[in-house]
């Protein structure tokens, strides 16, 4: 696969290393000539081009027309957006991915046709937000001479457990989701149950696995 990366900062450089290791055809565009020379020494001459990834002539020379993916990961949102818009509109690149530095720009990018955008701020925020909500795995009792814990948890809209059949959830070994309270209606949970936001779930967890259940609940969505 031909992958073009724009921006030779930490993110771009690490991505280039990984894609090269995976035997993809990789080209990294870097605007600063001194930095581009350093990157060429690090990654190999054939993987680095000095130039502005928003310059249509540079894009032509870099072969944007045959790129399967263009990834724009500079520290400037405007550069990432325009590079991706040009890649789509002029070169018909199927998949464009943009780094979004200001999280309020995520929606702006989506509205302007950049479907894949990644905001480190949002990811970290969501992780921590989940960490907080997953603390709401509340111990409510012990069974089996203390060998099993009974816990309850109310699922937030960010829970990775939403929308998946219970049989397909990767839960810690020996963990059972047993009882569901949805609104005012309570009932048993079986393999076919699909959980929703706001569900209160009672689970049986072997002692020592409660922390792992917390980890499952703290996993970032998708």
């Amino acid at each position: 696969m031909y992958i073009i990366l724009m921006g030779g900062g930490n993110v771009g450089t690490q991505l280039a290393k990984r894609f090269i290791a995976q035997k993809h055809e990789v080209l990294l565009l870097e605007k600063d000539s001194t930095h581009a020379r350093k990157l060429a020494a690090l990654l190999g001459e054939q993987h680095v081009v000095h130039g502005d990834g928003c310059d249509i002539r540079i894009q032509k020379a870099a072969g944007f027309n045959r790129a399967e993916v263009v990834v724009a990961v500079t520290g400037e949102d405007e550069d990432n957006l325009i590079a991706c818009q040009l890649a789509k509109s002029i070169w018909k690149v199927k998949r464009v991915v943009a780094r979004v530095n200001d999280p309020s720009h995520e929606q702006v990018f989506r509205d302007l046709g950049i479907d894949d955008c990644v905001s480190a701020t949002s990811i970290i925020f969501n992780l921590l937000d989940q960490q907080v909500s997953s603390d709401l795995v509340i111990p409510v009792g012990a069974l089996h001479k203390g060998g099993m814990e009974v816990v309850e948890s109310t699922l937030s809209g960010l829970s990775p457990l939403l929308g998946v059949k219970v049989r397909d959830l990767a839960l810690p070994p020996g963990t059972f989701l047993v009882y569901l309270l949805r609104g005012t209606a309570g009932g048993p949970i079986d393999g076919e149950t699909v959980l929703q936001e706001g569900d209160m779930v009672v689970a049986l967890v072997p002692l020592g696995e409660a922390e792992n259940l917390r980890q499952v609940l703290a996993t970032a969505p998708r």
Partner: protein
Amino acid sequence: MRLVILGCGRAGSSLALQMAARGHNVTIIERNPDVLRRLGSHTHVNVVLGNGLDLDVLEQAGAAEADAFFALTRGDNTNLMAAQIVQRNFGVKKVALKAADPLRADAFRRLGLFVINASAIIAGMCRDWVLDEPIRPTGEYNILVEEMEL
């Protein structure tokens, strides 16, 4: 009219002063307080200090109520992004911007933006002047036909 201008450079400050002198309500967004001196001391131009790509700053400058928006910084990508945000998120009908790179200007003209390319206008006017041809409407100079071949 209510106008919001991004960038207090030569183009932005001139436009702001001209429109304010004609009695329009002008707000200029600028990141660098030093260049606000271009507006002089006795003007009626509102100033918002900040980054014009920040939705809160645009909101504060009154982009939602603006009749027209102009993105006139020296960064082509900044101008292109700001113009699209204002057009889409704030629903402003008249949005213009300048772009120094004629190819990029043309690409975004095709996406429906009003993009002004100063080099093309200067080149075209010089050409017609030296060839003794009549000076045409500026819109006809805005596109550098020779530059369009990729």
